[in-house]
């Protein structure tokens, strides 16, 4: 490269850095989300194609690595486990819900939600930003703020909607805390990313607090961002800390957030 073109490349580098910094500072003011919406619409066909190819690759790898099991059998059993998990969660809630405030029919109605299914067509390019793109948008009645469910529970929240696609912030993203409660005791807390994983923080928990691995957390409805009663995660590890005001338990999401292929959007609940 000649000295002149080197200098020009350097000047382009400087301009690009300045533009990047301006975008970082003024991105929201410039309504960058609107541009992202247009881009998402343009890229949607490519993402659908590549996502389908990716599903094929994933199935191929799964077929090789599984011994004796077929993919179909695996999916059927997972679905069964998911159904039983939902029934168990519903049963736990029914046992502790105040009968004077909520009758059984009301609670069942809470759990029987209207959903629209969607294919996951993209994940964020960077693992440190936990979001994904799904194959349906405003054309199917999707609105920002709607809850997104995997096979077993809540996986995220719609943040941006285009006609044929939508962006979903996953519960594993640090910027999306979820108010939750234990399904069997209704003890409240906040689901957050902490120490390289998901954790639930419970302020003012009782001194006799006992949590067992597998205890289910559901959305509490506090804050109005999510409907009440959606299964979210399960306790994986907990040790009571006597000196702490806030108790923290490690939790695991009910769905593998890195391997989502299909999700459901809860169209019943749109936060204000």
């Amino acid at each position, binding site marked *: *490269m000649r000295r002149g073109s080197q200098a020009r490349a350097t000047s382009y580098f400087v301009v690009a850095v300045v533009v990047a910094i301006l975008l*970082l500072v003024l991105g929201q003011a410039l309504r960058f989300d609107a541009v992202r919406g247009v881009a998402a619409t343009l890229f949607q066909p490519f993402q659908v194609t590549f996502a389908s190819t990716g599903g094929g690759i994933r199935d191929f790898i799964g077929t090789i690595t599984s011994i004796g099991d077929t993919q179909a059998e695996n999916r059927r059993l997972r679905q069964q486990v998911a159904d039983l998990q939902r029934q168990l969660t519903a049963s736990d809630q029914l046992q502790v819900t105040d009968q004077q405030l909520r009758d059984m029919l009301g609670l069942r109605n809470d759990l029987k939600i209207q959903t629209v299914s969607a294919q996951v067509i993209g994940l964020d390019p960077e693992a440190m930003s936990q979001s994904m793109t799904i194959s349906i948008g405003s054309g199917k009645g999707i609105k920002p703020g709607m809850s997104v469910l995997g096979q077993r529970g809540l996986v995220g929240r719609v*943040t941006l909607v285009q006609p044929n696609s939508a962006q979903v912030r996953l519960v594993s993203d640090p910027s999306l805390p979820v108010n939750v409660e234990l399904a069997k005791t209704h003890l409240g807390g906040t689901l957050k990313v902490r120490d390289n994983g998901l954790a639930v923080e419970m302020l003012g928990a009782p001194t006799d607090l006992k949590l067992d691995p597998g205890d289910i957390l559901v959305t509490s409805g506090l804050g109005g961002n999510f409907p009440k009663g959606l299964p979210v995660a399960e306790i994986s590890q907990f040790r009571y800390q006597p000196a702490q005001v806030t108790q923290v338990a490690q939790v695991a999401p009910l769905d593998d957030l890195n391997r989502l292929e299909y999700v459901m959007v809860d169209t019943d609940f749109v936060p204000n």
Partner: protein
Amino acid sequence: MSSWVAFPLIAILAAMQTSLVPAIAVGPARPQLLLVWIVCWAVVRGRGEALPWAIFGGLVLDLLSQMPPGSHLLALVVVTFLADLGHRVMQGSTELFAGAAVLAASILYGLVLAVVLLATQHPISLVDVVLRDLLPGALYNLVILVPVFFLQRKIDGRFPVSVIPEF
């Protein structure tokens, strides 16, 4: 390489980055196709050609990502510039340098993004990001560098003169 080919290729790589890469992730390790392609091209042909790709690719990734706008653009142009600069300063084997450049660029790229997230009030742990995301991802990038470098050397040999030499 003609910009009529290069820019659509970059756009396709960005789309693959968001939709195909999750399927080939190994645990937390996710390869960064676009980063590897552009840094490798910076090593093979210099920033005169790689920098426009980095600018375009960074903007496309910013459009497809939920991260703060401008973050990918900043990270990609910085690592592309440094990859080319390092290649000019160091007198070594291109193959070896490509490996070292991709490894260093992967980590630096992730660090720039992490710093941007921290600066924009996103609660992340830098140590976690490095250990959980950057190091496994950088090693994965080294693996995909092999076919990418081979392919780019072929392209370089077949199209030795750039269509956009005066950038």
